Protein backbone atom coordinates (compact mmCIF):
# COMPACT_ATOMS: atom_id res chain seq x y z
CA UNK A 1 0.00 0.00 0.00
CA UNK A 2 3.16 2.16 0.04
CA UNK A 3 2.46 3.43 3.52
CA UNK A 4 3.22 2.27 7.09
CA UNK A 5 0.91 -0.62 7.96
CA UNK A 6 -0.67 -2.31 10.96
CA UNK A 7 -0.82 -6.10 11.23
CA UNK A 8 -3.41 -7.74 13.41
CA UNK A 9 -3.92 -11.49 13.86
CA UNK A 10 -7.59 -12.47 13.57
CA UNK A 11 -8.61 -15.11 16.11
CA UNK A 12 -11.77 -16.11 17.93
CA UNK A 13 -10.57 -15.12 21.38
CA UNK A 14 -13.08 -13.06 23.28
CA UNK A 15 -13.85 -9.57 22.09
CA UNK A 16 -10.82 -7.47 22.69
CA UNK A 17 -7.81 -9.64 21.93
CA UNK A 18 -4.53 -8.58 23.45
CA UNK A 19 -2.59 -5.35 22.95
CA UNK A 20 0.72 -7.16 22.28
CA UNK A 21 -0.70 -9.02 19.29
CA UNK A 22 -0.73 -5.94 17.06
CA UNK A 23 2.48 -5.09 15.19
CA UNK A 24 3.57 -2.34 12.82
CA UNK A 25 5.71 -2.30 9.67
CA UNK A 26 7.24 0.46 7.55
CA UNK A 27 8.38 -1.56 4.52
CA UNK A 28 6.87 -4.49 2.59
CA UNK A 29 9.83 -6.70 3.64
CA UNK A 30 9.25 -5.95 7.29
CA UNK A 31 5.52 -6.61 6.86
CA UNK A 32 6.19 -10.01 5.29
CA UNK A 33 8.51 -11.04 8.15
CA UNK A 34 5.95 -9.98 10.78
CA UNK A 35 3.04 -11.77 9.11
CA UNK A 36 5.16 -14.91 8.77
CA UNK A 37 5.91 -14.73 12.50
CA UNK A 38 2.24 -14.23 13.40
CA UNK A 39 1.18 -17.25 11.33
CA UNK A 40 3.66 -19.45 13.22
CA UNK A 41 2.65 -18.25 16.69
CA UNK A 42 -0.60 -19.64 18.12
CA UNK A 43 -2.78 -17.29 20.19
CA UNK A 44 -4.87 -18.83 22.98
CA UNK A 45 -4.10 -22.24 21.47
CA UNK A 46 -5.42 -21.23 18.04
CA UNK A 47 -3.35 -21.25 14.90
CA UNK A 48 -3.70 -17.88 13.21
CA UNK A 49 -4.98 -18.25 9.64
CA UNK A 50 -6.02 -14.66 8.95
CA UNK A 51 -4.10 -11.44 9.48
CA UNK A 52 -5.70 -8.04 9.00
CA UNK A 53 -3.24 -5.70 7.25
CA UNK A 54 -4.29 -2.07 7.00
CA UNK A 55 -2.84 1.40 6.68
CA UNK A 56 -1.41 2.52 9.97
CA UNK A 57 -3.59 5.43 11.02
CA UNK A 58 -2.23 8.49 12.77
CA UNK A 59 -4.16 7.92 15.95
CA UNK A 60 -5.44 10.83 17.98
CA UNK A 61 -7.87 8.86 20.12
CA UNK A 62 -9.11 5.27 20.43
CA UNK A 63 -12.69 4.28 21.27
CA UNK A 64 -13.47 0.76 22.46
CA UNK A 65 -17.14 -0.07 22.06
CA UNK A 66 -19.20 -3.19 22.70
CA UNK A 67 -22.88 -4.04 22.31
CA UNK A 68 -23.93 -7.09 24.30
CA UNK A 69 -26.98 -8.78 25.81
CA UNK A 70 -27.75 -7.58 29.33
CA UNK A 71 -29.67 -10.46 30.87
CA UNK A 72 -30.70 -8.41 33.92
CA UNK A 73 -32.27 -5.66 31.80
CA UNK A 74 -33.52 -8.07 29.14
CA UNK A 75 -32.08 -5.97 26.33
CA UNK A 76 -28.95 -4.77 24.52
CA UNK A 77 -26.39 -2.68 26.39
CA UNK A 78 -23.92 -0.40 24.61
CA UNK A 79 -20.72 0.42 26.49
CA UNK A 80 -17.87 2.60 25.25
CA UNK A 81 -14.58 3.78 26.68
CA UNK A 82 -11.40 5.55 25.59
CA UNK A 83 -9.43 2.72 27.19
CA UNK A 84 -9.29 -0.96 26.43
CA UNK A 85 -11.20 -2.14 29.49
CA UNK A 86 -12.81 -5.30 28.16
CA UNK A 87 -13.43 -7.26 31.27
CA UNK A 88 -16.86 -6.41 32.60
CA UNK A 89 -15.61 -6.45 36.19
CA UNK A 90 -12.91 -3.93 35.32
CA UNK A 91 -15.57 -1.75 33.70
CA UNK A 92 -17.75 -1.99 36.79
CA UNK A 93 -14.81 -0.86 38.93
CA UNK A 94 -14.30 2.26 36.75
CA UNK A 95 -17.78 3.58 35.93
CA UNK A 96 -16.32 7.05 35.31
CA UNK A 97 -14.40 5.70 32.30
CA UNK A 98 -17.35 3.95 30.67
CA UNK A 99 -20.32 5.41 28.82
CA UNK A 100 -23.40 3.12 28.91
CA UNK A 101 -26.76 3.19 27.17
CA UNK A 102 -29.46 0.52 27.13
CA UNK A 103 -31.20 0.22 23.75
CA UNK A 104 -34.95 -0.23 23.56
CA UNK A 105 -35.65 -3.73 22.22
CA UNK A 106 -38.33 -2.51 19.79
CA UNK A 107 -36.92 0.83 18.58
CA UNK A 108 -33.20 0.10 18.94
CA UNK A 109 -30.51 2.55 19.97
CA UNK A 110 -31.71 6.08 19.28
CA UNK A 111 -29.51 8.72 17.60
CA UNK A 112 -29.68 10.92 20.70
CA UNK A 113 -28.35 8.01 22.79
CA UNK A 114 -25.40 7.63 20.43
CA UNK A 115 -24.73 11.39 20.77
CA UNK A 116 -24.93 11.04 24.55
CA UNK A 117 -22.26 8.32 24.49
CA UNK A 118 -20.01 10.52 22.30
CA UNK A 119 -20.43 13.50 24.62
CA UNK A 120 -19.80 11.60 27.81
CA UNK A 121 -16.55 10.30 26.30
CA UNK A 122 -15.50 13.96 26.02
CA UNK A 123 -16.17 14.62 22.32
CA UNK A 124 -17.86 17.80 21.14
CA UNK A 125 -18.89 19.63 18.00
CA UNK A 126 -18.31 17.91 14.65
CA UNK A 127 -16.26 15.12 16.22
CA UNK A 128 -19.15 14.16 18.52
CA UNK A 129 -21.59 14.09 15.60
CA UNK A 130 -19.24 11.92 13.49
CA UNK A 131 -18.59 9.53 16.38
CA UNK A 132 -22.30 9.27 17.21
CA UNK A 133 -22.95 8.37 13.57
CA UNK A 134 -20.45 5.47 13.80
CA UNK A 135 -22.04 4.24 17.05
CA UNK A 136 -25.50 4.42 15.54
CA UNK A 137 -24.33 2.48 12.50
CA UNK A 138 -22.68 -0.35 14.41
CA UNK A 139 -25.89 -0.72 16.39
CA UNK A 140 -27.75 -1.10 13.07
CA UNK A 141 -25.28 -3.86 12.12
CA UNK A 142 -25.84 -5.58 15.49
CA UNK A 143 -29.62 -5.52 15.04
CA UNK A 144 -29.61 -6.35 11.31
CA UNK A 145 -27.49 -9.48 11.73
CA UNK A 146 -29.11 -10.85 14.90
CA UNK A 147 -25.85 -10.53 16.79
CA UNK A 148 -25.10 -11.57 20.36
CA UNK A 149 -22.18 -9.15 20.53
CA UNK A 150 -20.76 -6.51 18.22
CA UNK A 151 -18.16 -3.84 18.71
CA UNK A 152 -15.17 -1.72 17.65
CA UNK A 153 -11.73 -2.88 18.74
CA UNK A 154 -11.01 -0.04 18.46
CA UNK A 155 -12.54 2.80 16.50
CA UNK A 156 -9.80 5.37 15.97
CA UNK A 157 -9.99 9.12 15.52
CA UNK A 158 -7.25 10.12 13.07
CA UNK A 159 -5.24 13.32 13.16
CA UNK A 160 -7.62 14.64 10.52
CA UNK A 161 -10.61 14.18 12.88
CA UNK A 162 -12.09 11.27 10.95
CA UNK A 163 -13.21 7.99 12.45
CA UNK A 164 -11.93 4.66 11.23
CA UNK A 165 -12.78 1.17 12.49
CA UNK A 166 -9.31 -0.32 13.03
CA UNK A 167 -10.81 -3.58 14.24
CA UNK A 168 -14.12 -5.05 15.17
CA UNK A 169 -16.07 -8.11 16.16
CA UNK A 170 -19.49 -9.52 15.50
CA UNK A 171 -20.93 -12.77 16.82
CA UNK A 172 -24.07 -13.81 15.00
CA UNK A 173 -26.51 -15.79 17.13
CA UNK A 174 -26.35 -19.47 16.06
CA UNK A 175 -30.10 -19.67 16.70
CA UNK A 176 -30.66 -16.97 14.05
CA UNK A 177 -28.84 -18.84 11.26
CA UNK A 178 -32.19 -19.83 9.72
CA UNK A 179 -32.34 -16.16 8.63
CA UNK A 180 -28.82 -16.24 7.22
CA UNK A 181 -28.29 -19.59 5.49
CA UNK A 182 -25.29 -18.05 3.70
CA UNK A 183 -23.38 -18.19 7.02
CA UNK A 184 -24.11 -21.80 7.94
CA UNK A 185 -20.88 -23.14 6.49
CA UNK A 186 -18.81 -20.29 7.83
CA UNK A 187 -20.29 -20.82 11.27
CA UNK A 188 -19.35 -24.49 11.15
CA UNK A 189 -15.80 -23.74 9.95
CA UNK A 190 -15.31 -21.43 12.92
CA UNK A 191 -15.63 -24.35 15.35
CA UNK A 192 -11.96 -25.25 15.71
CA UNK A 193 -12.19 -28.62 17.50
CA UNK A 194 -13.05 -31.23 14.80
CA UNK A 195 -15.04 -33.32 17.30
CA UNK A 196 -17.09 -30.28 18.35
CA UNK A 197 -17.62 -29.50 14.65
CA UNK A 198 -18.87 -33.03 14.05
CA UNK A 199 -21.13 -32.64 17.10
CA UNK A 200 -22.70 -29.58 15.52
CA UNK A 201 -23.42 -31.44 12.28
CA UNK A 202 -25.08 -34.25 14.29
CA UNK A 203 -27.08 -31.59 16.15
CA UNK A 204 -25.55 -31.96 19.63
CA UNK A 205 -23.41 -29.78 21.80
CA UNK A 206 -19.85 -31.12 22.35
CA UNK A 207 -17.13 -29.49 24.42
CA UNK A 208 -13.72 -31.18 24.50
CA UNK A 209 -12.13 -31.64 27.93
CA UNK A 210 -8.74 -33.18 28.70
CA UNK A 211 -9.67 -36.48 30.37
CA UNK A 212 -10.40 -40.09 29.47
CA UNK A 213 -14.03 -40.73 30.49
CA UNK A 214 -16.43 -40.20 27.58
CA UNK A 215 -19.74 -38.58 28.55
CA UNK A 216 -23.16 -38.56 26.87
CA UNK A 217 -26.09 -36.74 28.50
CA UNK A 218 -29.56 -35.83 27.28
CA UNK A 219 -29.67 -32.41 28.94
CA UNK A 220 -27.31 -29.52 29.66
CA UNK A 221 -27.91 -29.29 33.43
CA UNK A 222 -27.41 -32.96 34.13
CA UNK A 223 -24.54 -32.94 31.62
CA UNK A 224 -22.71 -30.26 33.56
CA UNK A 225 -23.47 -31.97 36.89
CA UNK A 226 -22.08 -35.20 35.43
CA UNK A 227 -18.75 -33.79 34.23
CA UNK A 228 -18.41 -31.87 37.52
CA UNK A 229 -18.92 -35.11 39.48
CA UNK A 230 -16.60 -37.20 37.27
CA UNK A 231 -13.86 -34.63 37.86
CA UNK A 232 -14.09 -35.44 41.59
CA UNK A 233 -12.81 -38.98 40.94
CA UNK A 234 -11.10 -38.74 37.57
CA UNK A 235 -11.18 -36.66 34.38
CA UNK A 236 -14.01 -36.32 31.85
CA UNK A 237 -12.96 -36.51 28.18
CA UNK A 238 -15.83 -34.32 27.02
CA UNK A 239 -19.12 -32.66 27.74
CA UNK A 240 -21.88 -33.76 25.39
CA UNK A 241 -25.52 -32.80 25.51
CA UNK A 242 -28.06 -34.01 22.97
CA UNK A 243 -30.92 -31.59 23.67
CA UNK A 244 -34.47 -32.71 22.91
CA UNK A 245 -35.63 -35.04 20.14
CA UNK A 246 -33.03 -37.83 20.12
CA UNK A 247 -33.33 -40.78 17.71
CA UNK A 248 -31.66 -44.17 17.42
CA UNK A 249 -29.45 -42.91 14.59
CA UNK A 250 -28.47 -39.74 16.43
CA UNK A 251 -27.31 -41.63 19.53
CA UNK A 252 -25.36 -44.07 17.35
CA UNK A 253 -23.63 -41.08 15.71
CA UNK A 254 -23.02 -39.53 19.14
CA UNK A 255 -21.50 -42.75 20.49
CA UNK A 256 -19.15 -43.03 17.48
CA UNK A 257 -18.22 -39.37 17.91
CA UNK A 258 -17.10 -39.63 21.53
CA UNK A 259 -15.29 -42.93 20.90
CA UNK A 260 -13.01 -41.07 18.45
CA UNK A 261 -11.12 -39.50 21.34
CA UNK A 262 -7.91 -41.55 21.82
CA UNK A 263 -7.22 -43.28 25.14
CA UNK A 264 -10.81 -43.45 26.38
CA UNK A 265 -11.15 -45.68 29.49
CA UNK A 266 -14.93 -45.77 29.80
CA UNK A 267 -18.18 -44.17 28.63
CA UNK A 268 -20.79 -42.80 31.02
CA UNK A 269 -24.36 -42.08 29.90
CA UNK A 270 -26.85 -40.00 31.87
CA UNK A 271 -30.28 -39.97 30.22
CA UNK A 272 -33.66 -38.57 31.17
CA UNK A 273 -36.79 -39.47 29.27
CA UNK A 274 -38.90 -36.33 29.38
CA UNK A 275 -39.11 -35.00 25.86
CA UNK A 276 -36.53 -37.58 24.74
CA UNK A 277 -37.42 -41.15 23.67
CA UNK A 278 -34.50 -42.72 25.59
CA UNK A 279 -35.62 -46.25 24.61
CA UNK A 280 -34.88 -45.29 20.99
CA UNK A 281 -31.55 -43.74 21.93
CA UNK A 282 -30.54 -46.90 23.82
CA UNK A 283 -30.89 -48.95 20.62
CA UNK A 284 -28.37 -46.65 18.89
CA UNK A 285 -25.84 -47.05 21.71
CA UNK A 286 -26.11 -50.84 21.72
CA UNK A 287 -25.87 -50.98 17.93
CA UNK A 288 -22.48 -49.24 18.05
CA UNK A 289 -21.24 -51.48 20.91
CA UNK A 290 -22.06 -54.53 18.78
CA UNK A 291 -20.98 -53.30 15.35
CA UNK A 292 -17.78 -51.59 16.47
CA UNK A 293 -16.94 -54.25 19.11
CA UNK A 294 -16.55 -51.73 21.93
CA UNK A 295 -14.72 -53.33 24.87
CA UNK A 296 -14.27 -50.48 27.36
CA UNK A 297 -16.83 -50.35 30.22
CA UNK A 298 -20.08 -48.51 29.49
CA UNK A 299 -22.14 -47.37 32.48
CA UNK A 300 -25.57 -45.79 31.99
CA UNK A 301 -28.12 -44.14 34.22
CA UNK A 302 -31.52 -43.87 32.50
CA UNK A 303 -34.63 -42.49 34.19
CA UNK A 304 -38.01 -41.32 32.88
CA UNK A 305 -40.62 -42.30 30.32
CA UNK A 306 -39.94 -45.78 28.86
CA UNK A 307 -37.20 -46.49 31.42
CA UNK A 308 -37.86 -50.26 31.74
CA UNK A 309 -37.60 -50.74 27.97
CA UNK A 310 -34.41 -48.65 27.94
CA UNK A 311 -32.82 -50.70 30.74
CA UNK A 312 -33.60 -53.95 28.97
CA UNK A 313 -32.04 -52.81 25.67
CA UNK A 314 -28.91 -51.49 27.40
CA UNK A 315 -28.40 -54.54 29.62
CA UNK A 316 -28.75 -56.87 26.64
CA UNK A 317 -26.01 -54.84 24.96
CA UNK A 318 -23.64 -55.35 27.88
CA UNK A 319 -24.08 -51.92 29.49
CA UNK A 320 -24.03 -51.61 33.30
CA UNK A 321 -27.32 -49.90 34.11
CA UNK A 322 -27.94 -47.76 37.21
CA UNK A 323 -31.65 -47.45 38.02
CA UNK A 324 -31.57 -44.94 40.88
CA UNK A 325 -31.81 -41.20 40.47
CA UNK A 326 -28.79 -39.44 42.04
CA UNK A 327 -25.95 -39.06 39.55
CA UNK A 328 -23.56 -39.35 42.54
CA UNK A 329 -24.21 -43.08 42.93
CA UNK A 330 -23.97 -43.76 39.20
CA UNK A 331 -20.59 -42.04 38.90
CA UNK A 332 -19.30 -43.89 41.99
CA UNK A 333 -20.37 -47.17 40.37
CA UNK A 334 -18.45 -46.26 37.21
CA UNK A 335 -15.23 -45.70 39.12
CA UNK A 336 -15.75 -48.90 41.15
CA UNK A 337 -15.93 -50.80 37.86
CA UNK A 338 -12.77 -49.09 36.58
CA UNK A 339 -10.82 -50.10 39.73
CA UNK A 340 -11.58 -53.81 39.25
Amino acid at each position, binding site marked *: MGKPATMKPQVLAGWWGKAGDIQFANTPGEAARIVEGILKMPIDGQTVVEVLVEERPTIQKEIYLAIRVDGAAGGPLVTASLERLGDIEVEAAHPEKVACQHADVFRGLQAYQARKIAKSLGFSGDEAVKLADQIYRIYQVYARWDALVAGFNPLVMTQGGNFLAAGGFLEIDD*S*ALFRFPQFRELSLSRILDPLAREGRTIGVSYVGLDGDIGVICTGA*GVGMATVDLISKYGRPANFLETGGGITEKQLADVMRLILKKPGLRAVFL*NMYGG*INPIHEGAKGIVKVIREDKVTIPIVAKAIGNFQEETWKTLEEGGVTVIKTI*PTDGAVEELFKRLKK
Partner: protein
Amino acid sequence: MSILVDEKTRVLVQGITGRMGAIQTMHMLKAGTKITAGVTPGRAGSRVEGVPVYDSVEEAVAEQEINTSVLFVPAPVAEASCVEAIDAGLKLIILITEHIPTQDTMRIRAYARSQGAVLIGPTTPGVITPGKCKVGIMPTHLFAPGYVGIISRSGTMSYEVAGMLSTEGIGQSTMVGMGGDPIVGTGLVELLELFQKDPETKAVVIHGEIGGTQEERAAAFIREKMKKPVIAFLTGKVAPEGARMGHAGAVYFGKMGSMENKVKAFREASVPLAESPGEIIGLVRKAL
Protein backbone atom coordinates in the same frame (compact mmCIF):
# COMPACT_ATOMS: atom_id res chain seq x y z
CA MET B 1 -51.51 -23.46 47.13
CA SER B 2 -48.64 -23.37 44.66
CA ILE B 3 -47.28 -20.89 42.19
CA LEU B 4 -48.23 -20.15 38.55
CA VAL B 5 -50.28 -23.29 37.81
CA ASP B 6 -52.90 -25.21 39.82
CA GLU B 7 -56.30 -26.92 39.50
CA LYS B 8 -57.81 -23.72 38.05
CA THR B 9 -55.35 -23.64 35.14
CA ARG B 10 -57.01 -24.07 31.70
CA VAL B 11 -54.41 -24.68 29.02
CA LEU B 12 -54.17 -23.82 25.33
CA VAL B 13 -51.49 -25.71 23.37
CA GLN B 14 -49.99 -23.67 20.52
CA GLY B 15 -48.45 -26.00 17.95
CA ILE B 16 -50.68 -28.87 19.10
CA THR B 17 -50.65 -30.77 15.79
CA GLY B 18 -46.84 -30.93 15.62
CA ARG B 19 -45.02 -34.13 16.57
CA MET B 20 -43.90 -32.78 19.92
CA GLY B 21 -47.08 -30.83 20.62
CA ALA B 22 -49.27 -33.88 20.09
CA ILE B 23 -47.18 -36.28 22.23
CA GLN B 24 -46.80 -33.80 25.07
CA THR B 25 -50.54 -33.01 24.96
CA MET B 26 -51.13 -36.71 25.61
CA HIS B 27 -48.66 -36.75 28.54
CA MET B 28 -50.14 -33.57 30.06
CA LEU B 29 -53.69 -34.93 29.83
CA LYS B 30 -52.54 -38.15 31.52
CA ALA B 31 -51.08 -36.01 34.34
CA GLY B 32 -54.54 -34.48 34.88
CA THR B 33 -53.93 -31.12 33.19
CA LYS B 34 -57.07 -29.45 31.87
CA ILE B 35 -56.28 -28.71 28.22
CA THR B 36 -59.26 -26.98 26.64
CA ALA B 37 -57.97 -26.07 23.19
CA GLY B 38 -55.13 -26.20 20.71
CA VAL B 39 -54.05 -23.88 17.90
CA THR B 40 -52.39 -24.61 14.58
CA PRO B 41 -53.17 -22.19 11.74
CA GLY B 42 -55.11 -23.97 8.99
CA ARG B 43 -56.09 -26.96 11.12
CA ALA B 44 -59.36 -25.72 12.65
CA GLY B 45 -61.97 -28.44 13.16
CA SER B 46 -59.52 -31.29 13.81
CA ARG B 47 -58.87 -32.82 17.22
CA VAL B 48 -55.71 -33.99 19.02
CA GLU B 49 -56.32 -36.45 21.87
CA GLY B 50 -59.90 -35.18 21.83
CA VAL B 51 -58.82 -31.55 22.27
CA PRO B 52 -60.44 -29.17 19.71
CA VAL B 53 -58.04 -27.36 17.38
CA TYR B 54 -58.54 -23.73 16.23
CA ASP B 55 -56.89 -21.56 13.59
CA SER B 56 -56.08 -18.73 15.98
CA VAL B 57 -55.75 -18.00 19.69
CA GLU B 58 -58.51 -15.39 19.41
CA GLU B 59 -60.98 -18.01 18.12
CA ALA B 60 -59.93 -20.54 20.78
CA VAL B 61 -60.35 -18.00 23.57
CA ALA B 62 -63.79 -17.02 22.25
CA GLU B 63 -65.09 -20.58 22.55
CA GLN B 64 -63.14 -22.17 25.41
CA GLU B 65 -62.08 -21.32 28.93
CA ILE B 66 -58.32 -20.60 28.70
CA ASN B 67 -55.93 -18.77 31.04
CA THR B 68 -52.53 -20.22 30.10
CA SER B 69 -50.76 -20.99 26.83
CA VAL B 70 -47.98 -23.52 26.35
CA LEU B 71 -46.02 -23.28 23.10
CA PHE B 72 -44.39 -26.08 21.10
CA VAL B 73 -44.09 -23.99 17.93
CA PRO B 74 -40.91 -23.90 15.77
CA ALA B 75 -38.36 -21.23 16.80
CA PRO B 76 -38.81 -19.06 13.67
CA VAL B 77 -42.48 -18.41 14.57
CA ALA B 78 -42.11 -18.28 18.36
CA GLU B 79 -42.19 -14.48 18.58
CA ALA B 80 -45.33 -14.16 16.44
CA SER B 81 -47.06 -16.96 18.36
CA CYS B 82 -46.32 -15.39 21.74
CA VAL B 83 -47.56 -12.00 20.55
CA GLU B 84 -50.75 -13.66 19.33
CA ALA B 85 -51.37 -15.26 22.75
CA ILE B 86 -50.63 -12.01 24.59
CA ASP B 87 -52.88 -10.00 22.24
CA ALA B 88 -55.69 -12.49 22.92
CA GLY B 89 -55.42 -11.53 26.59
CA LEU B 90 -53.59 -14.56 28.03
CA LYS B 91 -51.53 -13.74 31.11
CA LEU B 92 -49.36 -16.84 31.50
CA ILE B 93 -47.21 -17.91 28.55
CA ILE B 94 -45.01 -21.00 28.89
CA LEU B 95 -42.54 -21.14 26.01
CA ILE B 96 -41.02 -24.62 25.66
CA THR B 97 -39.37 -23.93 22.27
CA GLU B 98 -35.54 -24.05 22.11
CA HIS B 99 -33.09 -22.14 19.88
CA ILE B 100 -35.09 -18.92 19.57
CA PRO B 101 -32.84 -16.02 18.41
CA THR B 102 -31.89 -13.95 21.46
CA GLN B 103 -33.07 -10.68 19.91
CA ASP B 104 -36.52 -12.26 19.33
CA THR B 105 -36.61 -13.37 22.96
CA MET B 106 -35.81 -9.84 24.13
CA ARG B 107 -38.85 -8.54 22.24
CA ILE B 108 -41.13 -11.34 23.49
CA ARG B 109 -40.06 -10.65 27.08
CA ALA B 110 -40.53 -6.88 26.78
CA TYR B 111 -43.91 -7.22 25.09
CA ALA B 112 -45.20 -9.70 27.69
CA ARG B 113 -44.15 -7.33 30.47
CA SER B 114 -45.75 -4.32 28.82
CA GLN B 115 -49.07 -6.23 28.63
CA GLY B 116 -48.93 -7.62 32.17
CA ALA B 117 -48.35 -11.21 31.03
CA VAL B 118 -45.93 -13.61 32.74
CA LEU B 119 -43.53 -15.36 30.36
CA ILE B 120 -41.74 -18.56 31.48
CA GLY B 121 -38.88 -19.71 29.25
CA PRO B 122 -37.88 -20.07 26.47
CA THR B 123 -35.91 -23.38 26.50
CA THR B 124 -37.88 -24.48 29.56
CA PRO B 125 -39.31 -27.87 30.57
CA GLY B 126 -42.32 -25.88 31.82
CA VAL B 127 -44.05 -25.67 35.19
CA ILE B 128 -45.58 -28.44 37.31
CA THR B 129 -47.60 -28.38 40.52
CA PRO B 130 -47.54 -32.12 41.28
CA GLY B 131 -50.94 -33.75 41.57
CA LYS B 132 -52.71 -30.66 40.23
CA CYS B 133 -51.37 -29.48 36.93
CA LYS B 134 -48.45 -30.05 34.59
CA VAL B 135 -47.78 -27.55 31.82
CA GLY B 136 -44.62 -28.84 30.17
CA ILE B 137 -42.56 -31.84 29.18
CA MET B 138 -41.26 -33.24 32.48
CA PRO B 139 -41.65 -36.97 33.31
CA THR B 140 -44.69 -36.84 35.65
CA HIS B 141 -43.78 -39.87 37.80
CA LEU B 142 -40.66 -38.20 39.20
CA PHE B 143 -42.75 -35.54 40.96
CA ALA B 144 -44.86 -35.76 44.15
CA PRO B 145 -47.06 -33.18 45.92
CA GLY B 146 -45.52 -31.41 48.90
CA TYR B 147 -43.86 -28.31 50.26
CA VAL B 148 -40.55 -27.75 48.48
CA GLY B 149 -40.32 -25.30 45.59
CA ILE B 150 -37.80 -25.95 42.80
CA ILE B 151 -36.38 -23.43 40.34
CA SER B 152 -33.98 -24.73 37.70
CA ARG B 153 -32.11 -23.43 34.68
CA SER B 154 -32.18 -26.95 33.25
CA GLY B 155 -34.91 -29.48 32.50
CA THR B 156 -32.92 -32.63 33.24
CA MET B 157 -31.46 -31.22 36.45
CA SER B 158 -34.94 -30.29 37.69
CA TYR B 159 -36.03 -33.90 37.07
CA GLU B 160 -33.06 -35.18 39.03
CA VAL B 161 -33.76 -32.88 42.01
CA ALA B 162 -37.50 -33.64 42.07
CA GLY B 163 -36.93 -37.37 41.55
CA MET B 164 -34.49 -37.56 44.46
CA LEU B 165 -36.80 -35.58 46.76
CA SER B 166 -39.84 -37.71 45.82
CA THR B 167 -37.89 -40.95 46.42
CA GLU B 168 -37.06 -39.67 49.91
CA GLY B 169 -40.70 -38.82 50.58
CA ILE B 170 -40.23 -35.05 50.19
CA GLY B 171 -42.88 -33.63 47.85
CA GLN B 172 -42.82 -30.40 45.83
CA SER B 173 -45.17 -27.40 45.83
CA THR B 174 -44.25 -26.27 42.29
CA MET B 175 -41.26 -26.79 40.01
CA VAL B 176 -40.48 -24.00 37.56
CA GLY B 177 -38.05 -24.49 34.70
CA MET B 178 -36.56 -21.05 34.25
CA GLY B 179 -34.87 -21.82 30.96
CA GLY B 180 -31.26 -21.97 29.84
CA ASP B 181 -31.05 -18.97 27.50
CA PRO B 182 -29.16 -15.70 28.14
CA ILE B 183 -32.56 -13.94 28.34
CA VAL B 184 -35.38 -15.54 30.32
CA GLY B 185 -38.97 -14.35 30.61
CA THR B 186 -39.09 -14.62 34.39
CA GLY B 187 -35.88 -14.65 36.41
CA LEU B 188 -34.69 -16.27 39.59
CA VAL B 189 -35.45 -13.28 41.85
CA GLU B 190 -39.03 -12.96 40.56
CA LEU B 191 -39.65 -16.69 41.07
CA LEU B 192 -38.22 -16.55 44.59
CA GLU B 193 -40.65 -13.68 45.32
CA LEU B 194 -43.56 -15.91 44.18
CA PHE B 195 -42.42 -18.80 46.39
CA GLN B 196 -41.96 -16.38 49.29
CA LYS B 197 -45.66 -15.46 49.03
CA ASP B 198 -46.90 -19.04 48.65
CA PRO B 199 -48.00 -20.36 52.07
CA GLU B 200 -47.51 -24.00 51.03
CA THR B 201 -43.87 -23.62 50.08
CA LYS B 202 -41.61 -24.23 53.10
CA ALA B 203 -38.22 -24.25 51.35
CA VAL B 204 -36.83 -23.65 47.86
CA VAL B 205 -34.12 -25.52 45.93
CA ILE B 206 -32.34 -23.52 43.22
CA HIS B 207 -30.33 -25.12 40.45
CA GLY B 208 -28.03 -22.50 38.95
CA GLU B 209 -25.39 -22.62 36.22
CA ILE B 210 -22.38 -20.69 35.04
CA GLY B 211 -23.22 -17.66 32.89
CA GLY B 212 -25.06 -14.40 33.47
CA THR B 213 -25.69 -12.82 36.87
CA GLN B 214 -29.05 -14.28 37.94
CA GLU B 215 -27.55 -16.32 40.79
CA GLU B 216 -25.63 -13.31 42.11
CA ARG B 217 -28.80 -11.19 42.13
CA ALA B 218 -30.78 -14.01 43.73
CA ALA B 219 -28.15 -14.30 46.48
CA ALA B 220 -28.57 -10.59 47.26
CA PHE B 221 -32.36 -11.01 47.35
CA ILE B 222 -32.11 -14.03 49.66
CA ARG B 223 -29.80 -12.16 52.04
CA GLU B 224 -32.04 -9.12 52.24
CA LYS B 225 -35.62 -10.35 51.81
CA MET B 226 -36.12 -14.12 51.68
CA LYS B 227 -37.70 -15.52 54.84
CA LYS B 228 -37.77 -19.17 53.74
CA PRO B 229 -34.75 -21.47 53.58
CA VAL B 230 -33.10 -21.72 50.15
CA ILE B 231 -30.67 -24.47 49.09
CA ALA B 232 -28.54 -23.99 45.98
CA PHE B 233 -26.79 -26.38 43.61
CA LEU B 234 -24.53 -25.05 40.86
CA THR B 235 -23.26 -26.78 37.74
CA GLY B 236 -20.48 -25.95 35.28
CA LYS B 237 -17.39 -26.18 37.54
CA VAL B 238 -15.21 -27.82 34.87
CA ALA B 239 -16.45 -25.71 31.94
CA PRO B 240 -13.61 -24.08 29.96
CA GLU B 241 -13.83 -20.28 29.63
CA GLY B 242 -15.86 -19.20 26.60
CA ALA B 243 -17.41 -22.66 25.94
CA ARG B 244 -21.21 -22.81 25.76
CA MET B 245 -22.20 -25.84 27.86
CA GLY B 246 -25.30 -26.97 25.99
CA HIS B 247 -27.38 -23.96 27.02
CA ALA B 248 -26.84 -20.70 25.14
CA GLY B 249 -26.66 -18.94 28.51
CA ALA B 250 -24.19 -21.33 30.18
CA VAL B 251 -20.93 -19.59 29.28
CA TYR B 252 -18.54 -17.32 31.14
CA PHE B 253 -15.83 -14.84 30.15
CA GLY B 254 -13.28 -13.87 32.78
CA LYS B 255 -14.98 -13.57 36.15
CA MET B 256 -18.29 -12.52 34.62
CA GLY B 257 -20.69 -15.46 35.00
CA SER B 258 -18.00 -17.66 36.58
CA MET B 259 -18.60 -20.37 39.15
CA GLU B 260 -16.27 -18.51 41.51
CA ASN B 261 -18.51 -15.41 41.56
CA LYS B 262 -21.69 -17.42 42.09
CA VAL B 263 -20.27 -19.56 44.91
CA LYS B 264 -18.98 -16.41 46.58
CA ALA B 265 -22.38 -14.69 46.31
CA PHE B 266 -24.28 -17.64 47.81
CA ARG B 267 -21.71 -18.08 50.60
CA GLU B 268 -22.01 -14.40 51.50
CA ALA B 269 -25.80 -14.85 51.67
CA SER B 270 -25.31 -17.95 53.91
CA VAL B 271 -27.13 -20.14 51.38
CA PRO B 272 -26.21 -23.83 51.85
CA LEU B 273 -24.53 -25.12 48.66
CA ALA B 274 -24.82 -28.76 47.64
CA GLU B 275 -21.53 -30.06 46.17
CA SER B 276 -23.34 -32.78 44.22
CA PRO B 277 -26.97 -33.64 43.37
CA GLY B 278 -27.02 -36.25 46.16
CA GLU B 279 -26.15 -33.67 48.80
CA ILE B 280 -29.32 -31.68 48.07
CA ILE B 281 -31.45 -34.17 50.03
CA GLY B 282 -29.57 -33.78 53.31
CA LEU B 283 -29.60 -29.99 53.03
CA VAL B 284 -33.37 -29.93 52.33
CA ARG B 285 -34.03 -32.23 55.32
CA LYS B 286 -31.99 -29.94 57.52
CA ALA B 287 -33.90 -26.87 56.27
CA LEU B 288 -37.31 -28.46 56.88
